[in-house]
């Protein structure tokens, strides 16, 4: 079948758009070990939903920013060396979990001390079980630095996108919580079900509805997730003096 020139032009344009939207496979030939990998943390067995979230998050990060995460990230467990496969761990949960072993708590502490970052995502839609477990285990690991609300002027809200407040699949509280380790926030805790807003089914459709803001809120949730990844990679880079005047002007408070 021979397509008309107009049809051929339309197809060519479509291919170009697809090429530009689809992330290019990593140009890095150094190997996976040096790439950014958003690893999901397996705390309870058989939960693959976290990994689907990290895959979607990696895809969004690669599509929107210069960061080139692995599109098929791995998983990590607290009890073995897999924890140290990447300095970024995504820990999502919905239910109460059994207390960690002392070795696991120690591994968590060591992971953060050596530069690791943990995004904890409460996907329970408001139930207390997972929240209680997270607070309990983090307090065991970091008794001197408990979770605290992250102020709304923190770099994490302008590490890539300019954001006013955190949202996920749920509107949730108006703040993220975090544990500061040295000069950086090493653990970010979201009670907004960020993963729920990112998940798609096997056919590419969004898995869950975002409430109450719908697709606009979903976009904000994706932006927040990207900001968190960029913060983990750049920490307070956006606080550098060279950025401050630009950002102040964009926020309308600069000269």
């Amino acid at each position, binding site marked *: 079948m021979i397509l008309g020139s107009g049809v051929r032009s339309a197809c060519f344009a479509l291919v170009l758009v697809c090429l*530009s*939207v689809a992330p*290019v496979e*990593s*140009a*890095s*030939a*150094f*190997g996976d*070990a*040096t*790439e*950014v990998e958003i690893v999901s943390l397996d705390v309870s067995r058989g939960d693959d939903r976290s990994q689907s979230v990290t895959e979607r998050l990696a895809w969004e990060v690669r*599509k*929107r*920013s*210069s*960061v*080139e995460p692995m599109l098929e990230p791995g998983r990590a467990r607290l009890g073995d*060396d897999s*924890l*140290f496969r*990447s*300095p970024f761990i995504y820990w999502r949960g919905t239910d109460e979990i059994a207390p960690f072993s002392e070795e696991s708590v120690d591994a968590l502490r*060591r992971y953060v001390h*050596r*530069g*690791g970052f943990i995004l904890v995502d409460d996907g329970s839609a408001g139930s207390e079980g997972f929240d209680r477990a997270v607070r309990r285990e983090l307090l065991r690991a970091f008794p001197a630095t408990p979770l605290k609300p992250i102020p709304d002027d923190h770099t994490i809200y*302008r*590490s*890539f*996108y*300019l954001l006013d407040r955190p949202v996920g699949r749920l509107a949730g509280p108006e703040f993220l919580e975090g544990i500061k380790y*040295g*000069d*950086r926030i090493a653990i970010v805790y979201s009670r907004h079900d960020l993963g729920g807003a990112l998940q798609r089914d096997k056919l590419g459709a969004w898995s869950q509805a975002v409430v109450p803001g719908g697709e606009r809120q979903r*976009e904000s949730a994706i*932006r927040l997730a990207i900001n968190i990844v*960029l913060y*983990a*990679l*750049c*920490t*307070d*880079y*956006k606080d*550098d*003096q*060279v*950025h401050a005047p*630009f*950002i102040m002007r*964009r926020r309308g408070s600069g000269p």
Partner: protein
Amino acid sequence: MEDWHWQLGIAGGATTAWVVGLAFLTLWLLELRSIRGESSAFRRFTLGALGGLSILAVYALALQVTLVREAFEEVAGGTALLIDNSRSMTLSGSSGERSDAVRALIRKWQDDDRVEPLVYRFGSETRGAIWNDLADTYDPTDDETNIREGLSTVLERGIEQELGSVIVITDGADPSFRAESLSLHASAPAIHSVVIGGDDRLDDQAIVSLRADSTAYVGVPAVIRADVRAIGKLREKELSVQLWHENRLSQEQWVALDAEGRGDVTFEVAPQRPGRALYRLVIPTHADDEVPQNNGRAVLLRVGRDRVRVLLVAGRPSWDVRFLRDFIKRDGSVDLISFFILRAPSDLTAAPTNELALIPFPTDELFREHLGSFDVVIFQNFDFAPYEMEAYLPRIRDYVKRGGSFLMIGGDHSFSLGGYGGTPIEQVLPVKLPAGGGVVTGSYRPQPNRQLIRHPIVALGPDPSLTRRTWEALPPLHGANAIAGVKEGAQVLLQHPRARLPGGARLPILIVGEADRGRVAAMTADASWRWRFASDDATVGSDEYELFWDRLVRWLTRDPLLEPARISTDRDRYGIGAPVIVSGLLRDERYRPIANERVSLRVEPTRDEVAGEVTAQTDLDGQVRATLQGPTAAGAYEVKAKADGEDIAAEVFLVEESGDELANLEVSSTELQAAAKRTGGRVFLSINDVPLLAELAATTRKTAGLISKQPLLHPLFLFLTVAVLALTWVLRRRWGRR
């Protein structure tokens, strides 16, 4: 009679004396009893008294009473002459030069050959001199007057030499000297002083001392403080101090002097360039100033940046970028400006610009306006092409050649993959780039170059063996940029254990070098963060990661502590012609000690024939120490160490016409008089009052044995004793008693 002591000569001493005494007393009581029947009271009294006297006389003779005294004799004692050899003795007053007065006094004393003193010169140090030619050889050049050190040395040696007197010839210009600081025992020799210039007060204005931090920072105000003083009739005159910099009068201040003629002045300077900055403080010379040499002093500031300025440009966020930036940012001595490319032209942010926290890449601002303000520029996995930076690459090259530092870290946007082949950047990189890019994959543990294992960047252990083991224990790296070769003069510090260059040599991972006056480094791997982020407790890494990057940044910024060779002088400033003691550690470019080799130490610029060059021998560790004759002209100088014809280390110092020695010229005899008072010495303020040396030379009293005499063996006493005994016998016979 105070020195006499009595002794008993009778055998058994005091005990025998008591026994014999009691026996004689008993005898006398028996005598009294025997004459009790005598009718005449006169006869009883006479016989009793004569009997008592006779017994007492015999008892006294039996005791053998002896008077004893220790005898002494006066003998001629040693005399030490302690002559001030400091430069202040060359000053002239109305009565002529002080040193001429000393020579005249020495000749006067030498005419009288009764005394030949031990002679010492004191100044920076105390050393012996020869009496016979002292007048001809006396040439005071020391930069310091230290009366205490001189006297202490002579007094200490004097114990063995049985010194009777020490004669100090000085102008007393040592404000630190205190007589009470001398350790003087009971038989210490008399300390006499001849104060040269004591009757000839100087008229002088001077900068007494200068204080400034040896290190200053560009643009940061540094303070230079000076203490000034005026003596004589110039105490009443106004005094101003000028600050000169680069042959220009920079500032001038009038100084208010106190009642003692002292005052201070403070200047604030803001150095504009890193390097060495020479500032001179000058008191304009008054017509009556007798010592204009002490009107100017200089200070040499080593000007650096208050913090090392590092520009880090990253092609995209990555863990390698994150860990390196966090490490540099934590270092309080580094001012880090980082710029990451967060969005490439092909990225779809799905947001209008006003919803993004992204700013344009300020290429012009960074690479045109402020490039020169950075000490180190780091390109970390950064490709220049998408950001229209071709025009800036020659500027970066020139920045390096002028003395800047540049580091390229590997990644898929670095080296040839970043399109740097054939660009001005390749001209300064220490490596040659291949035409077609290329990478090496797989994990590996880089190995330090055996020839350069002492280089501080890779010397992670205290010795080569432990360094090698440390590198073997570090977590592995993954992949590396391919390069075509290493440029001449560059040093390969880390190598790939397996991969090879086209010529067969091991693939370099870390290469350092120099490009004209700048320093450059190439790190072809992008996973050093793995050293910091390791799982195993037993695995080394965290500390080594920080040590490695700290050393690399410091090496790029020429931290003196990381230089292979360094020398230093014993002082920052010297007087005219003063000896300069140079010491240091000399290592070759591979950081191996230059052991047991002769190296040249040379003062530059050479403005006279005296200041020059010496050849010194290094020890096994590369340590060197030598003394050079200092320059005879005031100014800033550099002493350079040269090995195999190349300059390998340098240090700067100042030569001042004045200096501390000529700063305090007020003749003071107070403490010398206190020392004389403690030892029975004398102080002469006018050279005309000084007597011949023999009059000041002391005698020493020596013990000459014991003198004893027995007064009761005097003939008169013996005669009286015999007479009393005879009279007693005669009277007893006549009065009918036996």
